């Protein structure tokens, strides 16, 4: 187990810690982004190969077998791209809703917002 995996796990836990302890919407959004970065890093690492080459076939690598033995795994990279797109759309949505909430309640504190919203509901 390479120490990089440990670092990825620490990053993941930092995000989870932030999500559980912070109440400010912006900080919560950042925490989610940190978790996502950790997962994406893990995905790239899953296909990593020491001294590997980019998984693009060119004239320099005419032999398929030799190429496959050296190239990094492209599949996790495709998954990471998808995951980044999903993360981006979520981020945009969350920031948008946070701004609307700020306009309504004048605060980014999730607990205060929920308290005010509950008063309204009555």
């Amino acid at each position, binding site marked *: 187990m390479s120490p990089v995996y440990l670092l990825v796990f620490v990053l993941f836990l930092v995000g989870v810690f932030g*999500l559980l302890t912070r109440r400010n919407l912006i900080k919560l959004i950042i925490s989610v982004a940190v978790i996502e970065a950790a997962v994406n890093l*893990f995905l790239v690492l*899953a296909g990593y190969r020491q001294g590997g080459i980019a998984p693009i076939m060119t004239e320099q690598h005419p032999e398929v077998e030799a190429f496959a033995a050296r190239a990094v795994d492209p599949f996790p990279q495709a*998954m990471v791209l998808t995951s980044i797109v999903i993360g981006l759309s*979520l981020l945009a*949505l969350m920031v948008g*809703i946070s701004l609307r*909430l700020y306009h309504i309640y004048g605060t980014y504190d999730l607990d205060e917002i929920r308290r*005010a919203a509950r008063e*309204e509901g009555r």
Partner: protein
Amino acid sequence: MTALLPLTVALPLGAAFVLPLLPRRPRRAGDLLAGLISGALLVLAGLLSGRAGVYEIGGWRAPLGINLALDGFSAPVLLLAATVGLAAVLFSSAHLDTYTGRNRYWALLMLMTAGINGTILSGDIFNRFVFVEIAVISSYILVGFSGRGRALAAAIRYGLLGAAAANFTLLGVAVLYALHGTVNIAHLAGSVPAAGTALPGPEILFAALLMLIGFGYKSAAAPLHIWQPDALAAAPAPVAAFLAGALIPAAGVYALARTLFTVFGPAEAFGWMLLFPGLLSMIFGALAAERRKDPRVFLSYQGICQVGYILTGLGAAMVLAARGEERAAGLAAAGAVFHLLNYGAAAALLFLAGGTAEPPGRPSRWSALAGLAGAGSIAGIPPLGGFFSKLMIVAALWFGGFPLLAAAAAGTAVLAPVSFYRRREEFLPRPAGHAGRTPPAMAAALILLTALVLGLSLAPLPGLRGRLLGPARRAVLDREAYAAYLEPGEGQRP
């Protein structure tokens, strides 16, 4: 017949991109398109019910290609989602007059439908993750669609924790890929060894725990239920019905069951991982519901209690299958799938019936009666489906050697009718006497769901048992059958 499978995703996805482009006038153009697509999806789900098979997209075989798979477990959930979807669309067309951005609402609803259908049919765990995200991101927006502070606050809490939960699922997918080099469910079913009564390896346990957290959140199982009462109380009524009746059953419970049973295989450890949140949700949901004033919040907590029953049934099936007790495991699995369908249909019906009392509706006596059918099924009153599914779960627990769990489940089941009876004035719409008139589209939605609730009640009859519950039981428990889908020449077998 399997050539129809991609249409269940392509039709709503295509409509979702066309709908925002439609002109604002005539207003009914968007309603018509959404209605037509949902109707077509219900016909498709009806044609596909009772069938099994696999569709390879673009003709590419796994692991290079991706596939859609239909079997005895996914077909009934697809039918549930299609029926609830059509009911939600019909109800929305009358309910939406109080909102602006009508075509955007339809687009989001169609996107969510596409995501749910993709989740149910997807044959690999990464694509399923993507489809789940398509469905839930649309649902975050729809929960806050009214734009009121309360709805937006519910939406952002749901969304933030949901995004974190999604990353747990994705990490689980990544761990499985790193271990086995594939994300195809059938291939994983063939290569992840079933642990049985032994403890699975630490990395498999870790991956399973990540999946449990990710999908447990979407199932609103305690202690990951915190988003659900707020979201269901603040969402527009048809959205709440669609969330409770299709998103939670499909993207939550179904996805969790499929992952643990088919990908990881029977193991006692996974069984207890399901039994713990199951039992907690069941008891906590029933107790918490007692103390809530808001009728929608009451129904939400009752929903958590039902999800608890389903997870308890699945967990018992898992433990018993790992111990090799086939009969009791089969009863528990069939009961859990049956309760999943009963819960979805009845919860959607209750939220829609309650919605008839909101502006612009004036509920008639009939909408209160429809709500009563839903309440009866969830509360488990004898001739209705919910009674039989709870009975099957309790019996499986008893005969499987969990007398304490059986007693807890039976005790909670006996309390439910009392609880619903005491709250009848609140969650049922109060009929407006002679002035009461439910708009025809709303009435059609209620009739559709009432028919589903009553129809499901017939499923345990001896002649019909082999059509729904038998195939469902086999599909949940038989891992080899799912793996065999991808063998050459076997793909189309019934």
